């Protein structure tokens, strides 16, 4: 039975926050925070951060606006870089190409956008719209549609809400552009666009189905850009104080530490434009003698402690460097790394029946009933 999709944080009683021009320090913090929220996917934001440093050096700036300040009929471009993170390590992000699908969409729609926003705050895509904003002058909306990173198009708050999935544009570094004017469903949109993306080298700049200001306010995941900036600042601050950056993440996001250990094995395979596999982690200190297994499809999806599933999407599963608190991607996690596995609360929209259908464990091929790490605390059961 379908439940109504809850729409938390929608009451527009408070006045919208004033627009603010981001400093390069804000963007440094955003890159760090986004990488942690990327739950292993979305790609390391480093190259996009480098691009932002170059753009700021040349005098460009980016303005962040509160979603509540959007007019209901405002037109917002939802942007992402699509593809396999591994490819992004060789084909470096380029702001000029990130703008291309936005212009293609504007020509197709016959109107200009009023603002841009992230498809996903997690990983490089948390910074991606800023490159477009810096070059076009459009403001960036403080929101996204995942609150993290996910591998597929139907795994968003706007898809769960049943909003229209088209039109869609994609651009390649060569003179190739693709417009998908219509698709039967978000899953069809995912399949068709994924084929196009794979064909041009498993990396492409995209502009997803545009959203109205009303849609963003009702169904976006709000204030996630600020959340990522604040998270990054907390980690920077902890490092500067020689405090524990892992604890800083837990404090900033009300998260829970699940496991601390050393990576002893990684199995990885690239299939259909995704990076799938698992990492095995042997416990140290209090977790010594135990084994944690974390599976991934671009992002970390399910974690097992000694063979028992203890954490699963849509809870955020973050694997971070135990010393620095830096995020570790599924494309670079490797033998010998000392890591901490954390769970952070996922966006509420994904806890609904429709949400779980889109991003619950079964959406990633695990025949498990979703149990939130955080729900268990509420019901008084023992935490994993």
């Amino acid at each position, binding site marked *: 039975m379908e439940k109504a999709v809850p729409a938390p944080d929608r009451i527009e009683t408070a006045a919208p926050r004033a627009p603010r021009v981001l400093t390069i320090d804000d963007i440094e913090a955003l890159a760090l925070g986004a990488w942690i929220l990327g739950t292993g996917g979305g790609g390391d934001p480093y190259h996009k951060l480098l691009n932002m440093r*170059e753009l700021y050096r040349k005098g460009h700036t980016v303005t962040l606006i509160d979603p509540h300040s959007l007019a209901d009929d405002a037109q917002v471009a939802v942007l992402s870089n699509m593809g396999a993170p591994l490819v992004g390590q*060789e084909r470096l992000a380029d702001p000029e190409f990130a703008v291309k699908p936005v212009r293609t969409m504007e020509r197709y729609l016959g109107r200009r956008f009023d603002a841009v926003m992230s498809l996903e705050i997690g990983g490089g895509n948390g910074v991606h719209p800023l490159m477009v904003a810096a070059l076009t002058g459009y403001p960036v909306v403080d929101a996204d549609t995942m609150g993290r990173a996910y591998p597929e198009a139907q795994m968003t708050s706007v898809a769960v809400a049943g909003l229209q999935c088209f039109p869609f544009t994609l651009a390649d570094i060569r003179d190739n552009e693709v417009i998908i004017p219509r698709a039967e469903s978000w899953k069809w949109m995912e399949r068709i666009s994924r084929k196009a993306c794979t064909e041009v080298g498993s990396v492409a700049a995209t502009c997803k189905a545009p959203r109205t200001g009303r849609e963003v306010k009702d169904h976006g995941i709000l204030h996630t850009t600020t959340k990522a900036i604040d998270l990054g600042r907390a980690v920077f601050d902890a490092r500067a104080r020689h405090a524990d950056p892992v604890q800083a993440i837990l404090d900033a996001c009300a998260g829970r530490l699940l496991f601390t250990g050393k990576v002893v094995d990684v199995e990885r395979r690239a299939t259909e434009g995704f990076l799938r596999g698992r990492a095995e982690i042997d416990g140290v200190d209090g977790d010594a003698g135990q084994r944690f297994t974390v599976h991934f499809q671009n992002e970390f999806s399910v974690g097992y402690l000694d063979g028992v599933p203890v954490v699963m999407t849509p809870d955020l599963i973050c694997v971070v460097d135990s010393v620095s608190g830096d995020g570790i991607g599924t494309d670079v996690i490797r033998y010998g790394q*000392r890591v901490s596995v954390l769970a952070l609360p996922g966006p509420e929209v994904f806890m609904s029946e429709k949400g779980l259908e889109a991003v619950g464990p079964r959406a990633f091929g695990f025949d498990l009933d979703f149990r939130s790490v955080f729900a268990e605390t509420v019901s008084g059961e023992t935490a994993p």
Partner: protein
Amino acid sequence: MKRIGIDVGGTNTDAVLVDGNAVMGAVKTATTDDVTGGVRTALRDLAVQVGDAIAGTVAVMIGTTHFINAVVQRRSLNRAAALRICLPACASLPPMVDWPRDLAGLVDGGSYMVEGGHEYDGRPLMPLDERAVAEAGRRMRADGVRSAAVTSVFSPLTSAFEDRAAEILLSEHPELRVTCSSTLGRIGLLERENVTILNAALQDLAEETVRAFETAITESGIAAPLFITQNDGTVVSAAIARERPVYGFASGPTNSMRGAAFLSGIDDAMVLDVGGTTSDIGCLRAGFPREANNVVQVGGVRTLFRMPDVLSIGIGGGTVVAEAPLSIGPLSVGYRLTRDALVFGGDTLTLTDVAVAAGISDIGDRARVASLSPELIRAVMATVHRRLSETVDRMKTDAAAVPLLAVGGGAMLAPDRMDGISEVIRVEHFAVANAVGAATAQVSGEVDHVFRDMDRDTLLQTAEQMARERALAAGADPATLKVVDMEDLPLAYLPGNAVRARVRVVGDIAAR
């Protein structure tokens, strides 16, 4: 089987003669500006010490920190041009975009980006723009740049464009020395390019240094081939080392830890190497250094090197001690220790002087430190012990107590007891652990090849066989060969089930 191991450090040049599992002789001399002099002196002293035993030496294995120090200290670097084969991709982040300004200023011999590169599945991104490559070669020649770094998108999958570009550059500029990124690194364009440019910028120094080593060995009348130690505890021939100096960047800590394992017979331990200027703390696992977690920066440049995880603090035998108020380091008298330290007739109070006064070291003239107050000596040693213990603890990942191997010329500064350490072990010759590590380094054979129409088992066996043959050709003892790295990547776009396999085999150097 006899091997000579030499460690050419910033301060000292140490040499040892190792026969099987025994250290037959060990000497320590000062490093000289011309490198040759120090190595020659070390070899002469060693010959005097061991006498006829030096005859029958099968290999001279040298480890040096020269190359990494050149980058860190911004000296002896030549200009290098960077050619990146990538357009229309990657244009917004040109070569050296994330380098420290001072280093880029020294090295930058012009950047060129041309059309080409490959996709993740091996298809060309764009055809190689050969005319643009030729034009770049002509400009490098006109600019008087004699070294170039060539990096192409996805070249670890296929080096075809880099190889072709190198050919074109050489036809335009025959004096050019070309480093191709596919010979140095893996996936990760910016980091692989960084390493390639560093390698290109070290060509003059590498030529000079390797020639100096060869001259010293020849002049010493030793008729054994020269090998240079690498980051991973293996050695390569002098000819290869000259082309790829970056592969020796981390050989210092690797040799010191491998030498400590060899001398103590302990394969799992913490290693504390107290030198003249710093103390380096690392961790031995199964006889090899534990590798660092993160992207490794060298002189502020991001690289993809797998390097030993080492933490350094400014405590060494040459560390300067100030009284009232008491402060220890980070300044060090370095190689001037035997001139500036009190016990050697100088007027600078160093940790070596304090160690002599404390009775834990017996070098120089003890009478010259007799006036140091017992309170000062106690306070200094307590501070040194506390700092070393804290740093060891930071590097420790096991809850259980493990042994600590104290090595290096300043090993006497290590405390006898530390929290979380089962025992502090000092063994004979620990002062020259680096040179021992060099003498006991292994050789490797690597294959990186595209195989077609084979099942996975067959192709991996074939690749392993090729790697074994290469290791044998490099001088390995067949009985000691073992596979240390094996990976295969299916290349979906090519006909006939093409698979790219990479296998690496290592073994001890065979007696000849």
